[in-house]
């Protein structure tokens, strides 16, 4: 009954997936700058339960902060400082280029429909947004194809999640992938240090991509990369002669016997993935390979579980 009345964008929040995910936290590993008190470490010292250090009292300090015990023992005026915890500003970057439209034969299904890479990304983004929102963290969204299409700055209001879900629901795959310039642009836009979640198939030159991620890191962001690929793109299982058409209409179409170049193709993909993984590792960026053949909730739960154990 509720299904019938729920708005289209709410479909992106799968109750089963949310049930799995809600037990987990997505906690920023580094320090993030937030506006309100939350569960993430803030660069500022403030009110908290966790003691940080003592500091010499200077005029103007709140006398409530004076450590009376130290004053009593040593007759020195020191002020107690505590680690401030703040909320997180997370921005989800969703690649909506035409190449994300590929579904393949082995994609995981949702409500009987196989998920394209973009659908998969949509669900991932919605779930992550919901998760963060539930943690009282501010969540923003950027969708892009060849250029930045829509940017919703992070807000921690609950109603903000609705805006994000609405945007995710209407995002359509279009245009070629130009990740590097878009990411560089976004790195400039996203203001305070926070979490950046990139969901893309990363069909881009690895050097430029790593450079763009490095840009985020340089600005102090923690970056999460969800590398979403379809099973066919990873295993190249085609047998008969096929005509391969570029979904982004950039490269010319090719007609060939896929078996003849399978080994070469797989080597290239492996090289691409390895280079990305290595580049991300060097930048201390979480690189999360995801195959659309695996249900997105399992993939996400698995990742979050691993992350929380670290």
């Amino acid at each position, binding site marked *: 009954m509720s299904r019938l009345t729920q708005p289209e964008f709410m479909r992106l929040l799968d109750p089963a997936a949310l049930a799995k995910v809600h037990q987990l936290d997505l906690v920023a590993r580094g320090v993030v700058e937030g506006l309100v008190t939350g569960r993430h470490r803030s660069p500022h010292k403030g009110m908290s339960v966790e003691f940080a250090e003592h500091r010499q009292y200077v005029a103007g300090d709140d006398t409530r902060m004076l450590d009376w015990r130290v004053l009593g023992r040593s007759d020195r005026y020191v002020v107690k400082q505590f680690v401030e915890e703040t909320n997180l500003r997370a921005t989800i970057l969703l690649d909506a280029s*035409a*190449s*994300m*439209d*590929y579904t*393949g034969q082995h994609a995981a299904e949702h409500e009987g429909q196989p998920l394209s890479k973009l659908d998969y990304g949509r669900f991932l983004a919605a779930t992550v947004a919901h998760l963060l929102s539930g943690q009282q963290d501010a969540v923003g969204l950027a969708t892009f194809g060849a250029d930045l299409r829509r940017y919703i700055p992070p807000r921690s209001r609950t109603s903000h999640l609705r805006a994000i879900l609405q945007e995710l629901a209407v995002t359509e795959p279009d245009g070629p*992938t130009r990740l590097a310039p878009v990411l560089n642009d976004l790195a400039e836009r996203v203001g305070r240090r926070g979490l950046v979640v990139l969901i893309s*198939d990363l*069909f881009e030159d690895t050097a430029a991509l790593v450079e763009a991620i490095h840009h985020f890191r340089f600005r102090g962001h923690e970056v999460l990369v969800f*590398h979403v*690929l*379809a099973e*066919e*793109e*990873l*295993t*190249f*299982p*085609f047998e*008969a*002669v*096929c*005509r*391969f*058409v*570029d*979904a*982004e209409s*950039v*490269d010319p179409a*090719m*007609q*060939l*016997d896929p*078996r*003849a*170049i*399978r*080994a*070469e*193709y*797989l*080597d*290239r*993909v*492996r090289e*691409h*993935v390895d280079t990305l993984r290595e580049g991300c590792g060097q930048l201390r960026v979480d690189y999360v*390979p*995801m*195959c659309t053949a*695996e249900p997105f909730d*399992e*993939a*996400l*739960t*698995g*990742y979050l*579980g*691993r992350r929380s154990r670290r």
Partner: protein
Amino acid sequence: MTFLNWSILAGLGALAIPLLVHLLNRRRAKVVRWGAMRFLHQSFASRNRRILLEEMLLLAMRCLLVALLVLAFARPFVPARGRIPWPIILPGILLAVVLAGLAGALWSRRLWRNRLLAGAGGLLTVAVVLSVIEASLQRRLWSRRGGAQDVVIVVDASRSMQMRGPDGTRFDRALAEARAAINAAEPDDAVTVLLAGATVEPMSAGPTSDRAELLRSLRTARPMGGTMQGLDSLHAAVDALARGTNVAKKIVVITDAQRSGWSLPADRMDAQQGRQDKARWGFWASRLSELPSRPEVIVRTIESVGGTTNLTVDRIELSRRPVGTDRPVGIDVTVANTGQTTVSPEAVQITVEGRTYREPLAALAAGGSQTVRLEHRFTRSGPAVVSARVDFNDDLPPDNQARRVVTVLQTLPVLIIEGQGLGRPDERPGRFLAAALAPPADAPDGGDLVAPVRIAAADVGDLGPLDRWEVIILADVPRLPNAFAAELERFVQGGGGLWVAPGAQAGRVGREGSGIESFYNEWTATDGQPLLPARLVARDVRQSPARPAPESFSHAALTELARRGLSDLAEMGARATWRLEPLGSEHGAGVGARLTDGTAWLVDRRVGAGRVLVSSFGLSPAESDLPARRAVVPLVHELVYWLARADLADWNIPPGREVAWVLPDEGGDAPARRWVVADPAGVSHDVTAQRVGSDLHVSFAATQVPGLYRLQQLDADGHASDVAPFVVQCDPAEVDADILAPGDLEPVSGSTRVFHARSPAEMVAALAGDVPGEELWKYFAIAALVTLLAELVITRWIAARRRAVSAQPVVFPRAHAAEAALRRRFGRSDARDEGAKGAAG
């Protein structure tokens, strides 16, 4: 190259099938719309060339397979006398097919596709047009113009045609092919069949169209033996053609192509014989022009099938000649294996004077030979037949037996003319000679062969005719009367042997030191040349004697003495010798032995039919100690035998040579006493007889067929009694299988068209006016099968290779799989830890 089924060639359009299949496959390709094109393009860039090559190879092979099948059904045919070489036409077609396949592989590259298709079309058109032209040329070349023709079929009936094979003898096969040729002749054709062995025999009275009669006559045909006389056979063929009335003429020669007997000028080592042969062939060629049209000669060679087994009694030789009844003579029989397999004959049977000896033989490898020696002492003088036979069942039985006629002498009359000399009568050289030649006191029955007679030089006027002597020795004779010297020269010219052993008085130093003046130096033959093989140029008297140098012995009579090593000849010393100056090899003079100081000892020369020998010293004890040596007896015997041999008639003759006898004319009426010659088959032949004075000169020329012949005398009742045997030897080259190559019959091909038929079918086709040649469809079918297999193998190989090089797919770790793995790992490590703890406890 042409085709017999032209219409099938249209099937080459089926070449489009593999191309269409290929193109349709491309068109039916599943469309994959995705984004991973960058990897696809990168991969394709590095594999592009290989993929293209594989596609080109596969398509070319598939097109080739179709084309080979179509061509096989079109029955490709290579004419025996092709005008347009097939290596132009066939590769043209196949290249066109391959180009079409390549065009299919490069279909998307328009420029290349069009170029390749144009090339393929052009090549195919040219090749097919050339085939059409070839077919038309061949029809014109071979078609029978002018209706009926005269045909002569020459069937080789020589001895080598009796060689057996898996399907009968070569002669049987030749007859079968002759029958096929007769059957192929048109009803109006006039056919003559000739059997050609040592002689040529027609199988019909003349050219006939009665094929049944000809076939009947072939049933009685038997091999004739001997060697096929190629030129004589062709002469006989021209004779037969000349009797025919048709304009078109053909000669078919069915032979095993043994080279011997063809009298080819190129085979002759002797330039003069080569010129003679050339003239004979020229005469044959001139006879061709007398015919209304030059006949075409079709040569069909019966090939040797498989490895033959053949033993041949190659030679029968005597260890020495002449042969007397005085002592045993060695009979050497050589058995040769002229086949291609190793054989193990048990023994050779040698029959002589009614006695049969069995001499064992060892195994003989192919090409090997073995000689066995039989020591036999003849008991009767006169001609004797030695026969040797190997009992072995080989492929060519006729040559397992050989015969030789040996003339056994009763006596060998030797005349010794001796000078007076200065020594005592008992030291005269003639005495030593006579003693050395005379039979010993303990001589066995039959005595010695040599019967020496001594006579003083002064008494030569009373000698009478010299013909009764075989050998005359001049021992220490200073000079001879001129009349006797002339008679002596005639004796030598007529075949007698003369030995000059000059003594001390044979010459003296001339006035004013102008060299040696000697009767012998002045003695000239009728042709103005010196009679003796050497001039006496100086008299050497030595302090230390000169000895014979055995290493210089090259004289035929000395080989036995030098070989034995038992003789004391080398120890003999000569103190006084004449220095001999040989005439030179242009006069036939040769030095047969030298002394240790290098001077010539024995010099000989042929004069007319006889021989003259000069030794550098006589047999006087004053000159040398030879008379005291044991070697003197064999030495003088061997020299006398050698001198006598020139005069001995050899009754073992090569085929075709005329034999002649001088018989005492016993008078009487010619019809009452007739002389005949019985040939090897026992058939009697008339001889030519002529009275010359008191002698009857009898000759016989029909000696072409090898074997044992007998001159026979018929008495009044017609009973024949053998008088003299003779053997016509077989040409040894007849079994050595020196085969004529097609180019060797240049004397024939220089005069008229010669066609070498490689199969009976080609021969029949050439005779019947069809185009002879070879059909190739079998090879094309095999090639198509091979191409099919190759295509399958290559397709599989490419597929297997693609599978083999398939790298592991890229796997993204799955969350639950990773957790399971993690759990497994920890579980195992826990178990290990517990195990370790347990072990420690």
